[in-house]
Structures are given as C-alpha cells and as structure tokens.
C-alpha cells in the first residue's frame, strides 16, 4: 500500500497560488486601462497587447538559457504583470520599439539576471521604465491632451512609427503646473489644471486605478499598508507646503490624483518581491515613497517621480525590514538589528 507521505499541513488554501494572485492584479488594472483608452485612444491597449508577447518571449528565452522548466515558470503570470504595468506607464504615443526595449530589459536584466521571480531587488517594470525615460526622454514624455485621442488607425500608425506624434501631444497637468508654478495668473488660466478633482482627465485615470487598487485590497492580494503609506506620505508632505505657498506648491489632492500616484501606490510600490515585508516596514516604505514622489515632483528634474521613488526605496527595503522585525511571541523585545 502506498500512501502519500508528506509533512503537515496536509491541506492548503484552495485557489491561492501565485498565478491566481497575478491574475487578480491583471483584472484590477482593467478600470485604469479603460479610462486611459477613453481619454488617450488605443495607444495604451496596443502597447499592452504588444508588451505581453515580448515579455513572455524574453522570459522563455532566458529560462531556456538557464536550463529551467519554461512552462512551469511562465505559468506564474509574473512576466505578464510586469509587461502590463510597464505598458500602462509608457505614453500611448510610444512606438513599438520603445516597448520592446523597455519590456525585454525589464524581464532579462531586472528580473532574470538576478535569479528570476522572487530574487529581483528592484521592481522590474520600473527598471525598464527608468531605462526608457533616461534613454528616450522625448518619446517618454509625449502624452496626449485629454479628449483629443487619436483614432484607432492613427494609434496604429503611431505604434508603427509611420506618423509623427507631435500632432497629438499636449502637456500633462503635472508638466503644466511645473512650468507655471509661482505664477498665480498663469496657473489660473490653464484649463488642464481645472478638472473635477485635479488635473483634467488625469483625475479620472487616478480614480480608476484607485478603484482597481481597492479591489486588490478587498481580495487580500495586497495589504493596505503600502498604498496608505504612499498616499499619506505624499499628502502629508504636500499639505504644509501648499498651506505655506499655494501658488508654488500643488494641493494635496492635486498630487494624489495626478500622474502615476494611484497606479504607483496600489500596483507598483506593492510589488511584494522588492518591497519591505513586515507591516510596520511596509508603512515606512510606502510613506517614504510618498515623500520622495513629492520631493522629486516639486524640486527634481522630472515631472513625475513614481519610478525613481520606488527604485530608491527598493534599495532601502532590506534595511527597513532589518530594523522593523516584530517581537516574537514569548520574547521581551523585538530583534532589532542586534545580530550576533
């Protein structure tokens, strides 16, 4: 008689595996994707559909080269999630090669070279994004003015690089505010800054990602600590400066609903692999991302800052973890740093 002999526990939570986690993340991006398409045309969707096969192919190639079981590792959807997050962050005007470079770099260099899923110290999507931002600043900052979305045909042409994007591009609210900060009159006259909540159109994008993010929290795919940390860090830093000089510094609400704030807080900073792990650590990690985002937005060289902030905090995550170890049951004090 041959019984299975294995260590306890003999049962595990059903429907709870890495692939399912990743699929939930994909579902949660749907509202954001829909709003982006509504406002800026089919560019993002085309990018996304292109990024997924690129990611899977790069992952499969490297896995094969590393002598791993390709089918087993592709089934965890992690490459797809990286591709989708990067595609959402790239402007809808991006040509095909931009996505190709960014996605393959994310997968090959930022993820697989470090040992694959679970081993990468940096968020792969953000490494790809930063590479593109530094190497191709023009292509990476050409956003479309809201509601002036190109048609499907035009989007395809943009994707193929057969038409110039200049006809469609316009400044984003963050760009605009940056340009006219300190000049009350000009600021008041910019239509794009006067959306329902914050900048026009972008408030909707952020709301949509907030909805998706709340779905993730509800499904227990992510815990609330990092998003709350990021948003609190951003808002709490923005508030006193805005109160001090409302012409030079944006309102907290403007910061929360502009750029990649919600996408970053719920989808990017929460990448568990590269984030801090303890509860307190996650709060600190998120909060500092929020602070960094505000600092770079207000004083840095780039209009948005989520990618830089996340990467910088990825660097600090091990240290945060080290100093935020919980107190084990039955012990008097937490084990804080005092190794050996």
């Amino acid at each position, binding site marked *: *008689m041959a*019984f*299975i*002999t*294995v*260590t*306890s*526990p*003999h*049962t*595990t*939570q059903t429907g*709870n*595996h*890495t692939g*399912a*986690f990743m699929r939930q993340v994909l579902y949660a991006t749907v509202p954001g994707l829909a709003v982006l398409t509504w406002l800026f045309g089919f560019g993002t969707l085309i990018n996304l559909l292109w990024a997924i096969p690129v990611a899977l192919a790069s992952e499969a190639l490297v896995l094969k080269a590393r002598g791993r079981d390709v089918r*087993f590792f592709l089934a*965890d959807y*992690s490459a797809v999630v990286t591709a989708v997050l990067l595609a959402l962050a790239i402007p809808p005007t991006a040509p095909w090669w931009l996505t190709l470079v960014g996605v393959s770099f994310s997968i090959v260099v930022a993820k697989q070279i470090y040992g*694959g*899923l*679970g*081993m990468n110290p940096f968020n792969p999507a953000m490494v790809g994004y930063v590479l593109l931002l530094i190497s191709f600043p023009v292509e990476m900052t050409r956003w479309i003015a809201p509601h002036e979305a190109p048609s499907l045909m035009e989007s395809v042409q943009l994707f193929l690089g057969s038409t110039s994007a200049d006809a469609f591009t316009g400044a984003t609210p963050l760009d605009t505010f940056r340009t006219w900060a300190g000049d009350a009159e000009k600021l008041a006259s910019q239509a794009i800054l006067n959306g329902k909540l914050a900048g026009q159109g972008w408030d909707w994008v952020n709301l949509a990602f907030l909805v998706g993010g709340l779905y993730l929290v509800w499904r227990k795919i992510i*815990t609330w600590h990092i998003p709350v940390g990021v948003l609190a860090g951003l808002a709490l830093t923005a508030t006193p400066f805005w109160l001090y000089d409302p012409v030079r510094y944006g309102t907290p609400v403007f910061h929360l609903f502009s750029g990649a704030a919600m996408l970053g807080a719920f989808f990017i900073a929460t990448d*568990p*692999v590269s*984030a801090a*792990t*303890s*509860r307190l650590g*996650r709060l600190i990690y998120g909060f500092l991302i929020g602070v960094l985002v505000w600092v770079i937005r207000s004083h840095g060289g780039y209009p948005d800052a989520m990618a830089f902030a996340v990467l910088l905090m990825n660097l600090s995550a091990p240290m945060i973890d080290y100093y935020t*170890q*919980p*107190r*084990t*049951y*039955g*012990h*008097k004090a937490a*084990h804080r740093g005092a*190794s*050996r």
Partner: protein
Amino acid sequence: MNARIPATTVPVGQYQNPRPIHDFRGGIHPPQNKDQSTGRPIRRAPLPEQLVLPLNMHLGAPAKALVSAGDRVLKGQKIAEGNGAVSLPIHAPTSGTVMAVGERPIQHPSGLHAPCIVIAPDGEETWTELHPLTHWRECAPSMLVARIREAGIAGMGGAGFPAAVKLNLRDGQQIEELVINAVECEPYITADDMLMRERAEQIIAGIEKLQFLLQPKATLVGIEDNKPEAIKAMCAAAEGKSMDILVVPTKYPSGGEKQLIELLTGKEVPSGGIPAQVGVVCHNIGTAVAIHRAIEFGEPLISRITTLTGDAFTEPGNVEVLLGTPVQSLLDYAGATAERIGRLIMGGPMMGFAIHTPSVPIVKTTNCIIAASAAELPAPPPEQPCIRCGSCAEVCPANLLPQQLYWYSKTEDLERAQQYNLMDCIECGACAYVCPSNIPLVQYYRHAKGEVRQQVAEQQKADKARERFEARKARLEKEAAEKEARRKARLEASKQKKSAAPGVDLAALKKASLDASSAYKAAVKALKAAETEGADPDTVAQLRTDADNLKAKADGAKAAVRDAKAGGASVADTGADKVAELKKAVGEASSAYKAAVKDAKAAEEAGAENASELRSHADTLKAKADELKAQLRDAKASAPATAATAPASKPEKSAEQASSEAADRAKKMKALKTAFNMANKQWKEASASLERAERDGADDIDTLKKTVDKLRFKADKAKEALNVLVEEAKKNIEAASGSDLKTLKLEAGRAEAAVRAKEKELEDAKRSGDQENIDVIYRERDALRREATMAASSLQSAIDEQGLKED
C-alpha cells in the same frame, strides 16, 4: 464565578462570556470539515486480533517493559513502568497473552520501528484489581498526583506530556488560572466535541479534581464557537460549579497551549518557558476525564476517543478505542478500503503526520485518523519561488518572520535562523497553508530544527572527544616522562658502577662517538642542501672534504669504543656486545638499502639518467646487508656455544643462560605468531579480492592469483617456523626436567587423583569415627596434596618457561 448563564435559555450565538477574552495574533480559517464525524454517537471499537503498545506513547523517556513473551496479563495490569521523571507506565488494555516484546512500526513520521509490547486478547476482558479513591478530597495531593502518574495519563490533546508533571507544583507556587482546553481548533477532529456532548459530567468531575490539586484562583474552560451542542452540555454540567465556560471565536490555532492561554488570560508564556512561570496550568478535557476515572474508579489509561474521518470512511464518527489497536482494524470497522485511501493521517490535517502503514497502533495521543481520498487531500503541487508576499507573516501566531526563516533554513544558515527565533516556531502550519507558492515551509523549519539539534549534539560530542584526547595525550606524556626518568636513573647507576672500575671510560667514548657521527650527519645534510640549491662548486667541495674528515673522525671514535669494549669486558660480554653491534649494523645496512631502492625507484619514475647507477648501488648495499646478516647469524650461534663450553664449572650461569634462551624463544614465538596472523590476514584479504576480481572478470586475475599463492606460502612458512619452535620448546622442557610435557601432565593428573581418593577415604573414616585412622589419613592427604601442588607448579613453570600455551 459560576457559569452564570444557564445554557438552556441562551442560544450559543448570543452566549455572553462571563469574563472578557483576548485575542492572539495571526491565525487562519481553514474549512472545518467537522460535520462528517459528528453524525453518530461515540461507538465502541471492536477488539482487534492483537494490540501493539509502543513503549514510547508519551513525550519523554520510553517506558521499561515488565512483561515478556508468553506472560498472561489482565486488563489494567501494568506491563511497563516509567523510566525517569518525564516518563509514564503502560497498562494492558485488555486481558490476554503477551505475544512479543519487539520492534514494530509506531506513530512517528519517519516510519521507523520501535520497541512495542504485543498482546493477543483472550476476549474475556478480565480486570485486574482496581483501587478506587472515592474519598479523594481527604487524600494528600501528592498521593493523588502519584496515582495520576501511575495511571499512565499523558496529555490527550496531542503532545502527550505526562499530566502528573504539570500537576507537581513547586512549594509556595500559586496558580492563577487553570485553563481547560476544549477548543479543538484543528479541522476534521471532533473527539473532544463528542466527549463534551456525551460525557460533560465526567469532564467537570475531572476539572474539579484538577482544581483540588492546583487550587487555582480561576478556572477557564475554552470552547470554540463552532461547537454549540458541546457548549450547551458543558454549561449545563458546570452549573453551580466555580468555573467559567468561555466561548472563543473559531480560528486556527486557538487550541495551541500558548495561544489558548493568551486568548483566555492575555498572558504570554516566555520563550523556552512553561505556562506555570506565568501562573497558568493548561490541561485538555480528555486528560480531565482520564484523571477523573483514575481517581474515582482506579482505572488506568487504557482507551481513548478517536475521530475516524475522511472520505475513505463509509461510516465516519468517533470511537472509544483501546490503546494499541492497529489503525487497520479501525479502517475495517468503519468501512475504509485501501483503494480509496490516498493519504492516511494520524492527527489533524494541520499538524498530524502521514503514516506509512495502517499497522501503526492508536496511542494515548491519537485524537484522529483521517483516511482521505486522493481527491480530498491531493498531492501537494510543486514548490514555486517565494514572492515575498508576506502572507505567512500575517498568519503566524508566534509573530515570526516565516519568510526569513525559510531563506535561512533553505541555505542552512542555522545561526541566522536561530537569531530569527526558529526554535519558537510551533509548527502549526498556518504559513504553509496560506503560502501562494506552495512552499512546504513547515518541512523546511522541521529540517532546520533537526539540524540545529544535531549540531548541538555533535558539538557536545566533539567537546567530549577533545577532552578525552587531551587527557590521553597528557597521560602518554606523563608515562614517557616517567620512563625517561627511570632510564636516566639506570644510566646514573651504571655510570657509578663503571667509574668505580678502573680502565677506559666507555660511556665517555660512546658519547664522543655519537657526537662525531651526528656532526658527520649534519655535515652530509648541509652538503646535500648545498647541492640541491646549486651552491658554487667550491663551497660544495669544501663541504665534502669537511664531511669526509668528520666521517674519518666518527669512524675513529667508533673504533675506540670497540677497542675499549674489547679490552674492558669479559668474553661473554664481547659476544653479546658483538651481537648487538652486528644487529645495529644490519639494521643500518638494510635501511640504507631500502633508502637506496626508494631513490632508485624515484629516479626510474622520473626517468633520470643515473637510475641504473642508483640501482646497482642499491644492489651493492643489499649484498653488504646480507653479508652482515650472515655474520650476525654466526655470532649468535657462537655466543651460546661459548656459554655451553663450561657448563660444569658454572652451573648457575648455565641455568640463567637456559632461562634467557627460553625467554628468547618465547619472544620469537610471539613474533612468529603475529607474523603468521598478519600473513594469514593478508592472504585472506588477497583471496577475497581475487574472488571479487574473478566475479567482476577483471584482467589482473593472474597477478592476484600469484599474490595469493605467495601470501599463502608466507603464512605456511610462518606456521611451520612456529611449529618448529614449539617442538623445540617442548624438547627443551624434556631436557630440563628429564620428562616431557606429557609426562609432567600425567604426573600432575595422577597426583590430583590421589588427593581426591585420599579425601574420599578421609570422609569414610570420619563417618566410621575412627579417630586414629583419621589423623593418619589427614597426614597422608596433606602429603599428597603437597605433591600434587608441586607437580602442577612444575608443569606450569615448564609451560611458562617455554612460552607455550596449553592448546
């Protein structure tokens, strides 16, 4: 502090806890799967064909068997006794015959076997005499604790810690809370649930006895809110008693001792400590019932309630089963066939262990048997990479960082794992349950914990080995120093003797000779070093002349020593000295030859030009050595001859000579014996390797065969030489005592027989009472006795002298 709310009037959903409860961190909510086994009342399992009782059913040292195969035992009779403070006795669960005391598969995840007592029941269920203590309130607590211990009661919840140990309080220790564990948080298990539904009075009676023993300020009974019927029954039974029934929310692992204590009292048991340190004692309700029965009826622990559940059972439910019943018997009883079972688990699905064979018996700690189909508990999927999601840390009731422990366990960084409090893990399995990457975390921790324990044991062993090694070294050094001191003393004494006699100072000469030769050796060494380092030819030449000079000097000194010896010592001494010197020369020559051969070989291997030259040099050396050997033989032959020339004039000396010869022979014989043993051993080894070679069909069989033959020949020769020596020794004895060994033996035997005959005569005489005759016989007997002793001793000495053993 009564159970204030009558259970009958309050639905469980609105049950008001009489005191606030706390919470513990982490925990999970796995599917309960308890309904399958609560549909039937507790049944009595049938008597199996045989009962297998492992000697370690409990935590602690295994018990010592008191019975052996063939013994008849009665129900409740003690068949094994506790071995040490943390150990328990075992009792026969029914009357019958002991079939065996031996190794059987037992309740252990390793599938290893361990000593068990096997009983074949006779079906009569004849009880041994029991001693109920109906007036237990008048008994001394220590006596009751002893009774509980003697009844073999182990914690029935799962760990099996001897209950009596937890009831032994230190002097002046005050127990604040007695916590009764009725939580049963693991899925599937309903043994405690059914026990509460059907036997709540017995539980309460047991708790009262625990209260009497521990005198706690409060008694808290914790029950999970998924057992409404049990709560009702318990509230009804506890009415008017001073205990609080506390309903706790369903959350795994609230039934863990530490978690339940935190849940009910808010106190944390310190790491590595026991609950009594925070004034809490925790017992399971099953244990309470067992204590009740042990005191009230004098019954030892011989049965328990076990849940039979899982898809493979057609009639799942709870059974009261005799300890030692094989699981197979229960599978048959409740309709679980082997084909349907995919996984057989002893204990719950979270912390139980899969057993390898259904012949494993039910023991004191077996609360559940899950016979799961392959669909119910499928094989675990492959492990995926950790994505650091942190779910494990969320659910860990010990507030550990399971992820860090996983990394460190995986890389066997045991030091780090311990820093992250690996040893505080209670192995509840919550982390592995929620892990989205299907990582068998608990197994990693168990492996690492095992490694830690092993490391500690190895360290202890290494420390002991070091200690012993150093002690031995010190002893050997001391012995060597003593030897040296003795040698020096001897030297001193002989020097004094020598200096008293006129003539040449032999010792001084010897020393001079030694000095000269060591100076020569040093010079040769320097020369060689210079040569290998490629120093300039002049220096080398200089060194060579120096060495030659020194050599001449050394030779001169040696000659002087020889002369002095020849002049000053007697003829016999010269002979002996010559032999010794020749021996030394032979030794030197042969070692020179060996060195030369080695050099030649090395040169041949290296393909040096001078290989043949070296070879011929070696041959010359060999010839020299042989010549010296021949000389030595001659000298040896002549030395005894010299002594033998004057046997009449110096009889004493000749006797001495003879005895020294005998000693020599004995030594030689010993050497030959060893040589024979060695040769024999080598031959055996060689033939074994030959056999192997033949079996494997190796191509060097011929060479091996030759080796074997050679070795056989060597062994035979050694044996022959040995035989010759033995014969010689025997002859010698004959020569010395005028009779051979056989005669000596015969004589000794005859003398002894005569003594025995006389002794018989003496006895006859005593009986007849003839005093005069008795005296005569006494004297005669004594004379005979002396004779016999002498004969025996002469035989012995002959044997000893010749170094023979009586074969």
